[in-house]
């Protein structure tokens, strides 16, 4: 849905054939799940297997979850059973087992590993607990619905933009997230499909572990190696983009186009300051509210689409470029806030995400 304003990028049959992820997402776009078997009366006990205490993105997602449950009221959701995966699949698998042992009415899962969580998801379904996947997919098809976006398409779109902006003869670098983690791997797949289809040889491709420090270390070495021979950088997240910008700042060099910003204050602040070209996408942690809505819809027995793209429900979450940077920048948000945010400002302030106005 989000690629409507993109020039020329189109998912080819070849790409679909090569990517089980695309096959699954595309096929589910039109499917509807009959949820009558899960119907029951409110209030509901909903289990939320979150990414957990790991970074501001997931902290804000949790905050949205708690806020939204409160907002819905106790007569809708009586209990939110929470599980903190600390961003590790190893921890999440037993955690989901612990959550299921509490016999919740539904399970919302932010999976930390596509395969690692497949069987637990199937077991939940077998146990009669409907599963809503939030923000990422698993390998099995046996769940009710997924809320997210087409990550393959995002990765490809970012690459496409870079080529359009710089030209196919540019020298590109690629910095991915954590090797082996689904979100990172799928985005990389999409990007590589585009680069390869255009016959582009990358200068290098390294994982930056979604960390500003790691990203900066790698960028420093790249700068030493390639100097101003770098025409564009593809990156899988704003934190790494921050590291990349910081390395350029130190080297006092001009920042080339970056594909892979996000609506994140820290990134936008330096982007506006340095005025380079970028293409940002969004991965709002507020999508948890859509996941909760989906869970409730399921428990009410209403049929539900098997793939819910958050952009359809949250139109402000579409990609944007440097031209719109000022529109998306929120000076009062602290550096690590990822937008868009749907909860009220007081709530943000309570959690320490709002900077005191001087």
């Amino acid at each position, binding site marked *: 849905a989000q690629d409507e304003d993109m020039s020329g990028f189109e998912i080819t049959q070849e790409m679909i054939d090569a990517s089980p992820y695309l096959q699954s997402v595309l096929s589910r776009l039109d499917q509807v799940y009959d949820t009558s078997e899960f119907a029951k009366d409110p209030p509901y006990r909903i289990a939320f297997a979150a990414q957990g*205490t*790991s*970074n*501001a993105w*997931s*902290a*804000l997602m*949790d905050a949205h979850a708690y806020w939204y449950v409160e907002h819905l009221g106790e007569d809708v959701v009586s209990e939110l059973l929470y599980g903190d995966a600390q961003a590790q699949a190893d921890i999440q698998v037993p955690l989901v087992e612990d959550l299921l042992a509490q016999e919740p009415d539904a399970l919302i899962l932010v999976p930390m590993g596509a395969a690692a969580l497949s069987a637990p998801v199937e077991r939940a379904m077998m146990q009669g607990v409907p599963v809503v996947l939030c923000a990422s997919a698993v390998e099995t098809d046996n769940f009710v619905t997924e809320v997210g976006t087409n990550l393959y398409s995002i990765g490809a779109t970012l690459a496409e933009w870079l080529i359009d902006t710089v030209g196919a003869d540019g020298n590109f670098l690629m910095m991915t997230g954590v*090797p082996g983690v689904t979100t990172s791997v799928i985005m990389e797949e999409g990007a590589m499909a585009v680069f390869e289809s255009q016959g582009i040889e990358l*200068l*290098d491709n*390294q*994982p930056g*572990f979604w*960390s*500003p*420090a*790691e990203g*900066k*270390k*790698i960028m*420093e*070495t*790249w*700068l*030493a*190696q390639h100097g101003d021979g770098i025409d564009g950088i593809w990156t899988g997240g704003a*934190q790494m983009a*921050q*590291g990349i910008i*910081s390395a350029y*700042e*130190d*080297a006092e060099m001009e920042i080339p186009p970056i594909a892979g910003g996000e609506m994140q204050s*820290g990134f936008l602040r330096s982007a506006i300051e340095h005025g380079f070209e970028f293409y940002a996408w969004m991965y709002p942690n507020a999508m948890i509210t859509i996941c909760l809505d989906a869970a409730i819809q399921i428990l009410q027995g209403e049929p539900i689409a098997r793939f819910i793209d958050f952009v359809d429900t949250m139109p402000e979450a579409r990609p944007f470029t440097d031209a719109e940077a000022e529109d998306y920048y929120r000076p009062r948000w*602290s*550096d*690590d806030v990822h937008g868009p945010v749907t909860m009220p400002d007081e709530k943000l302030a309570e*959690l*320490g*995400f709002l900077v005191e106005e001087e």
Partner: protein
Amino acid sequence: MSIAKPYESASGASNWRMRKFIADFGVYIALAVLLLAATVLTPKLFEVNTIAVVMRQASQLGIVAIGQTMILLVAGLDLSIGGIFLMTSIVVADVTNGRDEMVLPAILIALALGALIGAGNGVLVTKRRVPPFVATLGMLVLVKGATQAYTKGVPGGFVPDVLGIVNQSWFVLSIPLLLWLGLNAFFIFVLRRTSYGRKVYAVGSNIEAARLSGISVDVIRISVYILGSCLAVASGVVLTGYVGYVDRFIGTGLELDSIAAAIVGGTAFVGGRGGLLGTIAGVLIIQLLSTMALLMGLDIEVQFIIKGLVILGAVTLYSLAETES
């Protein structure tokens, strides 16, 4: 009293000298070989810019490795360093909230907290005789948990601009490098020429004999853990300035890398043997490896493998040099 005349048997002696030479200089030879390989594989490495980058990055590891080496010298180990980095960057961002003039108080507070963590490690190891591996591992979980509870998952505040100074280089010189070299010079002197240094070696070599020689062994051990933690805070400040944000994964892996650097540099795992000069070489080897791997565009998986093999290779040198058992 009869010790037979040394160096009498020709074969035995030359063999022994060879082994001693490897033990004393193996790590420098390894470093030289690596540099030699770089002239062919990655000539870029020898450009001023690259050297500056390598040195700045090496300093981050190097400063921690000083503390780690000293802790290894008293037969200890510190795995809690990651927690100290995180604590440091949170304190810096929280206390200063971006204000340059608050940097000093922030650093002092971080040092005080670091000292507290170090003292905790030391007390567990000395008074409760918990093996350092587990004591400091437990402390790591505890410190990370405490930062989590304090920040509620969301570290607030900003890193002050003035810390950005750690990112500047004058030719190859930079603040982190100078700090690293300065701390090394200071602690090499301390270890070699002061009574404190002697006591550190004595405690590591034979703790019971040290106690019976009137050394307050627990004080020495606890103080070394405190020093190690304070050095980790120093490195944490550098890292915080380097990143410019509070990063939850700040300095991940430096604890194991610092141990590897010390061991590759010839510091014994069992205490009492080794020193900081070797550690410098160990740090450089580890840093060069990752920079060279990047310059060559090697995949991350290949980097993991190479790093493992080099550690094994370097340590094999020492085991070859061991006298027969």
